[in-house]
Each structure stands twice: as structure tokens, then as C-alpha cells.
């Protein structure tokens, strides 16, 4: 209606903070001309919880659990990045078995995260059947992780200096069974996303990013790799047990949404291979070394490859019981630029898929200070709330 009266006025479609396309709150303003997107902006911070400030008030052990809760999907990589950083500051090395178990859980987590993404991306395109099937199969990994670690999401597998639990034969068998089931399924999904006519209609040549663009926009992880930029911390700067269990970088050249599907699904095969290799060649030894509660002063950078890309931790210790500064730069933050840059020119219908294409994690972006406003902090009783409703509509 606005457009009829004032044809020059822009028509902005707000996506978020609450929107069915977003499983977490974020806010996009998509300016459209009919169905064509002409501009896009982003506003973050709706799930800002003050974690970076919060950990400054926690001791080194407690901080790890707070950081683990930055993200519900890639929780383990956060704890691993932090634990590796703190161990580097303290000059301690976790035993090889612990490092292998960290990598094992990280790869299982990558499998669960990529299958989750496959479902979400399919759902954004309105392909609910693929969504249901990939999530059904993802349940296998969730069960395995639950049996192995005790929790389905925040595994809390790390302690400072090692890991909490061992992988014994029953767990190894359970993991192998799950992988054996998932491998043919993954081949099937790869076939679906590369052959299904309707899905290809929504993904091929959509959101294409050349490798030069991907490099200048500073993208990381599968988003960069789909454009042929081989950025993978597991290969570039192997950490934990990755020097012993090397992975191959998967890249594609097309740079469109289909390439992102293909890269992520092919990474699953690489993960399956690494998981099997670790189970076969798990080094013997202790699970953890003891750490002192005080960490010597210093600064360190800890980088880990999360399912979404490079996770960057900067840790600073002042020699006390608490961290002095923890800076977390999550992969999603790097990749936003690519969505905003590629969206103009596409149809509005493509936008949810473009957003989903980078596998965004809003909670990861948003960290930092609880807002307590005394004036509004008031508990309403049910009766009062009801009365308010009656008054309001009178």
C-alpha cells in the first residue's frame, strides 16, 4: 500500500528478531523491489548474555563451562579452544589420549552439526521431508554422544588439563555402528541435493561468491571452502590430536548454495573416516593432568575449527584465579558479510536460504553484560496479568 502511494519509498521486509525463518533471534532488514532484494542490513545482539564480561568474574575452571554455553550446537569446540589456550598459558600438555578424545567428540559434534544444518537449510527452502530425514538420522549421533558424554548438547567433556571420561569398547562399538548406519545415508543425501530438480532450482547459482570475494570478505569454514578458499584450521594449524589424525580439506569451486551443501556433506565423510581412525588407534595413557588454580600471566591465541569455521580465542591472564580477558570471535561473525554482500539481486524467497547457507549461529555472535533494571524488575502475579489484559482491551 505504501508502495502505491509513494512509489519512491523503499519497501522493507523485516526478518526477525522473531521470525519463523530464524531459529534464533537476529534482525534483518531486507529492502525489496517487488520480489527482488535491493539491500540488506543486520542487527545482532538479541541473545547477548554478557559472557565475555561474565568469565572475568569466574575462576578458570568455571569460565570453561560458561564459554561452553556460548553455543548449543558447537559447544565442545568452545570448551576445547578455551582449554587448549589455558593449557598453553599454564605450560601444560594434556595427555595424548585426552587430545584424541577431544578430537573424537569434536568430529562427532561436526557430524551432528552438519546434519542439523542440512535439515535447517532444507526447511528454509520448504523441503520438509529432507529436513525430517536428516534430523532423524542426526538422532543417532545425539544418542551416541549422550551415551559417551552423559549430555546430549553441552557435553562438558573437557576439564582443564584433559578430559573427563574414557572411551571404552562398548562406546567405540556404538559409535562405529552409528557411523556405519550414517555413511550410506549421507551418500543418499549427497545424491538428493545434487540431483533433485526442485532443490537444485533453489540452490544452483544462488548466492554465488567467487573465491576472491570469499577471501576479501574474510569468510571462514565451509562458506569459504565452498568458494574454493581452503581455510581449515585443522589443516593450517593442527591442534589437539589433529597432527596424528590429519584431515583433508574439502573444497568446491562453484561458490553457490549447492556448493555449500556439497562441501558440508563431503566433510561428513571425512569426519567419519577420522572418527573410525581415532577409535582404531586411540593412544593409551592418562585422561588428564593436574592443573593449579592460578594460571601464570601471559597472553595466548587459541584457534579451533568449529563446524561453522574458524573459532578464535584470545586469552589473557594476569596471574590470578580469574581470566583477565577472554575474547571470542566466532565463525558466524566472519561470514555475515557474505550474506549481506550476496543478497541484493536475489529473490526474497532466496533470502532465508542465503542466511541459512552460512549456518549462522546467533548465540555465538552475541556475548557479553546482563541488564538489570531495578525499575522494571517486577514480578507479576497471574491475577494481575489478567487484570492488565482486561484493562488494556476495555
Amino acid at each position, binding site marked *: 500500500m505504501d508502495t502505491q502511494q509513494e512509489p519512491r519509498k523503499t519497501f*522493507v521486509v523485516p526478518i526477525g528478531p522473531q521470525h519463523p525463518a530464524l531459529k534464533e533471534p537476529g534482525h534483518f532488514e531486507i529492502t525489496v523491489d517487488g520480489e527482488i532484494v535491493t539491500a540488506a542490513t543486520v542487527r545482532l545482539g538479541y541473545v547477548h548474555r554478557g559472557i565475555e564480561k561474565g568469565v572475568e568474574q569466574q575462576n578458570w575452571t568455571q569460565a570453561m563451562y560458561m564459554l561452553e554455553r556460548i553455543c548449543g550446537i558447537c559447544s565442545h569446540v568452545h570448551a576445547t579452544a578455551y582449554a587448549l589456550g589455558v593449557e598453553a598459558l599454564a605450560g601444560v600438555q594434556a595427555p595424548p589420549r585426552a587430545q584424541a578424545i577431544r578430537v573424537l567428540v569434536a568430529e562427532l559434534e561436526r557430524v551432528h552439526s552438519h546434519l542439523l544444518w542440512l535439515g535447517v537449510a532444507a526447511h528454509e527452502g520448504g*523441503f520438509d521431508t529432507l529436513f525430517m*530425514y536428516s534430523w532423524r538420522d542426526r538422532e543417532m549421533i545425539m544418542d551416541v554422544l549422550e551415551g559417551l558424554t552423559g549430555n546430549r548438547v553441552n557435553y562438558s567433556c573437557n576439564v582443564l588439563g584433559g578430559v573427563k571420561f574414557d572411551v571404552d569398547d562398548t562406546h567405540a562399538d556404538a559409535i562405529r555402528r552409528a557411523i556405519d548406519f550414517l555413511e550410506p545415508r549421507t551418500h543418499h543425501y549427497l545424491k538428493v541435493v545434487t540431483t533433485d530438480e526442485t532443490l537444485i*532450482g533453489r540452490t544452483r547459482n544462488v548466492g554465488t561468491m567467487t573465491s576472491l570475494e570469499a577471501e576479501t570478505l574474510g569468510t571462514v569454514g565451509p562458506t569459504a571452502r565452498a568458494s574454493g578458499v581452503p581455510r581449515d584450521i585443522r589443516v593450517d594449524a593442527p591442534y589437539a590430536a589433529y597432527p596424528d589424525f590429519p584431515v583433508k580439506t574439502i573444497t568446491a569451486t562453484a561458490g553457490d548454495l549447492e556448493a555449500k551443501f556439497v562441501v558440508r556433506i563431503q566433510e561428513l565423510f571425512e569426519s567419519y573416516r577420522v572418527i573410525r581412525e581415532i577409535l582404531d588407534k586411540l593412544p593409551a595413557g592418562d585422561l588428564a593432568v593436574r592443573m593449579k588454580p592460578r594460571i601464570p600471566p601471559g597472553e595466548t591465541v587459541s584457534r579451533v575449527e568449529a563446524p561453522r569455521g574458524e573459532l578464535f580465542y584470545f586469552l589473557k591472564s594476569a596471574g590470578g584465579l580469574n581470566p583477565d580477558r577472554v575474547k571470542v570471535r566466532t565463525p558466524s561473525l566472519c561470514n555475515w558479510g557474505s550474506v549481506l554482500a550476496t543478497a541484493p539481486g536475489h529473490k526474497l524467497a532466496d533470502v532465508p536460504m542465503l542466511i541459512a547457507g552460512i549456518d549462522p549461529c546467533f548465540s555465538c555472535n552475541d556475548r557479553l553484560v546482563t541488564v538489570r533494571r531495578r525499575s522494571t524488575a517486577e514480578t507479576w502475579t497471574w491475577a494481575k496479568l489478567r487484570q492488565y489484559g482486561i484493562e488494556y482491551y476495555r
Partner: protein
Amino acid sequence: MNIELPPLVALLFFPGGLFLLSAGTVYEWADRKLVARFQNRIGPRWFQPVADVVKLLAKEEIVPDGVNPVLFHGLPVVALVGTLTAALYVPMAGMAPSYSFTGDLIVTLYLLSLMTLSMGLAGANTLDRFSLIGATRALTQLFSYEAPFLMALLGPAIAAGSWQISHVDAYAQGHWWMVLTQPVGFLVALVGLMGKLELPPFDSPEAETEIVAGPMTEYSGRGWALFRIGRDVELLVGLTLMAAFYLGGLANPIEFVLKTGGLLLVTAALQSLFCRLRIDQTVGMWWRIGILLALAQLFLLAFMR
């Protein structure tokens, strides 16, 4: 089968009013259940659609600012009345239509379009951006599938030599199933029906991941409930029409249940097989493929006669 019913009974109970509403919800449940089973889920229990409607009817209806209240309240009623009226001219439940006259096929098709038209207007009536985009898409889609759908249904009518639904039904009962003699028309009509009902993959007018609920975004409570029932009844009427024309007519209730059920199974499978089409893809598909197929079929029939 042919039973004479007093007009009031026909209107309020069978095959009108009460029967349509309850049968419509049953068909909605069957559709949801089948899609769920195709996706390896359990799906809703049998009373879920009824429970949804009851809940919606009991809810407060919020009238947003900036709408024309008469249109806002009136359009759901128009949509529902349109579909309910359409049901009177089709062989509902295998019975002869309650009312029948020459050319009632055209009237029925227009009454069925009233639903989409009301939804488009309802969306355009609000100031909501999602509704506006949804309304544009709904009407765009209406103009694209309507012509091929109409032509596809004309095929059996031409074969029967009558534009009266009861005559076509009677002709279909006495001849080969027209799904075999006119397979192209059947395909176009089936896909057209899915487009009419905005079922996946033609659900871009209400694509939830882009525009929330499309034209229905601002509706809550009664209005939304009426639109939902209207859509259920439209599903029922559409399936009945398809079964009567293409699946050898509807002679009795058992045939009705089996044939419409079979059609529902096919539409449910099609719903779960595809990725949602963008509106430009939908329109492109209809004008490039759908209408050509329907036209070819029509010309072939005209020559054969």
C-alpha cells in the same frame, strides 16, 4: 445413488453444512497424517484439526490497526460460504448433487476461486508487509494455475458433451476411467488442485520461512478458523470433483471414500517429495508447461469428437 432431501436438510446437514465441516476436518487430518507417515513421523491424532478449530474459535480475534473492519470480518465468511456453496453442486459422498443445472461446472470452479480471492484481498487489506507480499503472491499464483486447471477439467466435460457436473459424473461411471484416456489432463488438474489449495510445493504465498503466514499473518481467532475450515472444505470438494471426473465417477459412498482417499495419498506424496517452488518458478512452470499440456489435450479432444 440418488436420495431426495428437503432443501433445509441438504443445506444444514447433508451434504451441506455439518457434514462438510466434519468431513473437511477428517480429510485435513488424513492429509497431515499421511505427510507425517511419509516423513517417518507419527503425525497428529484424529481430533487434532477439530481441536485446532475449536481453540481458534474460542480465542480473541485481534483486529489490527489500519484495516477495513467490514472486509476483515467479512472475507473469511465469503471464503467459507463460497466453498460450502460449491459443495452443493458436486456429487458429495457419492450422492447425486443437491442442485444441478446446465453449466454448474463453471459456477463451481468460480466459487472455489472465491477462497483464494478472499485470501488475497484479506492480505491486501492489512498493512502488514508479510501479508502484502503474501497477497501479491497468492493472486499471482491464482492467475497462473486457474486457466490450466479450468482447461484440464473441461476435458472430461467435452468428452461427456455436457457442462453439468452430474452429467459428467454419470458419463464417467459408464465409460473407461478418464485418468487412462486423458492422463495429461488428470496430471494438470491434480497439480492445479494442489496449487489452488496452496499445498507444498506451491505454498510460496504462505511460505513460513520468508513471509510468516502470508496473507493470513494478521488473522487470529475466528477469521483464521473460518479460512482454515474453508480450505478443508475446498480440499474435499476439489478431491470429489477430481474423482468424479477422472476416476470413473462416484456411484456410492464407498467409491467416494476409496477414490478420494487414493487421490489424497497421491497429493500427500507429492507434497512431501518437493522443495518449495519460488513464485517465479511456479508461474513459469504453469505458463510454460501446464497451459501447453492442457491446451494440447483440449485440441486433441476436440479433434477426436
